[in-house]
């Protein structure tokens, strides 16, 4: 009887010490010779890119393990606030109230611009509309324009598709397109805008429904959707989103993509972020349809 108790307690001690190991090493690991674990979560726009980076990095440094999950920019930053992740991915800058929440925990959020992205406005291939101005897109999404014939299309009702409010793409689109970058503007999405829980939800509805208009990151546009050429105003040229038009600034709906840490990164996290900003990692950015930050 006594023997089993002693054995059990021994087992417990071993188990406990085993549990402690990897969780502490992430913060104090020096060179990549030590086992470390990085938790990375956030924007669905970035998730594929972050996964590609994590895979390559783990090939280079097998001792580092990186877990990447999506869920939306707000989700990632909330996880950073709650202390469950090391790096939060965001397709929008951190909000002041989120910054305060992190500072309430005694840490300061540190921002890294890791890539650039264009947001494509997409419609069904059957839709004859080819180009729109920012103002027209804004009027469509705010509910001022409700039929395609008002902007020279067929006599069809407009079905507006958007990502859910926890998506950084949603917030960016609200501020830069719907409100045309005017901070005082309080325009909102028309109440009957469909909020789709995923990028795939938008793609599927665009492919099927000739009434629909949607927006999403350039990396998510497939050939069976039609991209709309966009101009800042009617007297400027209409441009389709591409690496070139984003880099020279002629495509108007482009943004920076971010990673955030709570407090200055150290150890494995610091090394990982430094690698992400290196040319080798930025090459992966262009492979996935985003725009690398170095070639500005």
């Amino acid at each position, binding site marked *: 009887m006594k023997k089993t108790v002693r054995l059990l307690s021994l087992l417990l001690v071993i188990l406990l010490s085993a549990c402690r190991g990897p969780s502490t090493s992430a913060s104090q690991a020096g060179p990549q010779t030590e086992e470390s674990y990085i938790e990375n979560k956030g924007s669905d726009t970035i998730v594929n890119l972050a996964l590609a980076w994590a895979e390559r990095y783990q090939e280079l440094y097998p001792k580092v393990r990186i877990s990447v999950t999506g*869920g*939306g920019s*707000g*989700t990632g*930053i*909330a996880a950073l*606030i*709650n202390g469950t992740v090391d790096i939060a991915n965001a397709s929008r800058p951190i909000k002041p*109230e*989120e910054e305060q*929440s992190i500072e309430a925990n005694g840490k300061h959020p540190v921002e890294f611009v890791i890539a650039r992205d264009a947001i494509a406005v997409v419609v069904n291939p059957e839709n004859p509309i080819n180009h729109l101005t920012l103002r027209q897109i804004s009027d469509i999404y705010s509910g001022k324009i409700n039929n395609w014939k008002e902007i020279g299309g067929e006599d*069809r*009702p*407009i*079905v507006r598709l958007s990502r*859910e*409010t*926890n998506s950084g793409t949603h*917030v960016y689109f609200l501020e830069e397109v719907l409100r045309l970058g005017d901070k005082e503007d*309080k325009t*909102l*999405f028309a*109440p*009957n*805008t*469909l*909020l*789709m*829980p995923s990028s795939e*939800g938008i793609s*599927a*509805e665009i492919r*099927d*429904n000739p*009434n*629909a208009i949607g927006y999403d990151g350039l990396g998510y546009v497939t050939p069976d959707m039609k991209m709309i050429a966009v101009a800042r105003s009617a007297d400027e040229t209409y441009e389709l989103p591409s690496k070139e038009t984003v880099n020279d600034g002629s495509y108007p709906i482009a943004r920076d993509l971010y990673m955030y840490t709570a407090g200055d990164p150290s150890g494995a996290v610091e090394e990982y972020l430094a690698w992400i900003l290196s040319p080798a990692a930025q090459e992966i950015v262009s492979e996935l349809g985003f725009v690398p930050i170095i070639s500005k």
Partner: protein
Amino acid sequence: MKSSLSWSEYIITQLVRVSGYSAIVFVALIFFFLLREGLPIIKEVSFGNLLNARWYPIEDYFGILPLIGGSVIVTIGAAMIAIPFGLGSAIFIAEIAPRWAREILKPFVEVLGGLPSVVLGFLGFVLLAPYIRRFLALPTGLTAFTGSLLLGAISIPTIVSVAEDALDAVPKSYRDAALAMGATEWQTIWRVTLPAARSGVLTAVMLGIGRAIGETMTVMMVTGNAAIVPTGLGALFSPVRTMTATIAAEMGEVANGSVHYHMLFFIGLVLFLISLIVNIAASAVVFRQRKRSERILS
């Protein structure tokens, strides 16, 4: 030997008792937690804002009416589909179907009940919604009606299996007596068997509705999630946003303890109270009816 037996008996009795009471304890704990996390919203958000027609939490519009309306209209639609179909097939299985058909139908209904809702939601999104858009010439197929159809399909198995059990439990002597007095088979079912199984049938309907109002994944995938206050029956054919889908879609983004966080718990509280009211109303009806029938019989 004898003492160890009485000991184990004592322990087992206590375990059974504890698990019996635990249902009450869990409901009470959940209710208490919802109250604690949801009630602060009354201080944080003005009453006018709460009863507004706008739900846009990232800009502090916390109008809860479109969400309640969305849940209600989808659930009513689902009930209109599931109750007639569910009770119809329960009556068929319990009263009319020959033995062999019954042996086949029952397990199939149970398999249907075990179908994961996300699978139905995916089918609805990929197949049903495009079809509904074309067939009814709607702007989009992602409507409350699409959600109602799928929720109906989800709650039918619940209604069928519970109602069928209730009908099955009606003593054969009731039917024999009715038939002996010259009632047709239909009159027997409608006037004798169904009223006799009333309380079980009503429980079946309530469980079915409860299943529909609490369902999340399916409605999030097919109802379009646009927060519009439904006005009239026409709203059945436009997009809606339900309370459950709102909680599921937004809970990931909220910071612990924020206004939005409390708001989502408040929605949970409203959802909890709605199903509580539905249940209480149902059992009140059953209780009253039973008393009346007991009076007549005595």
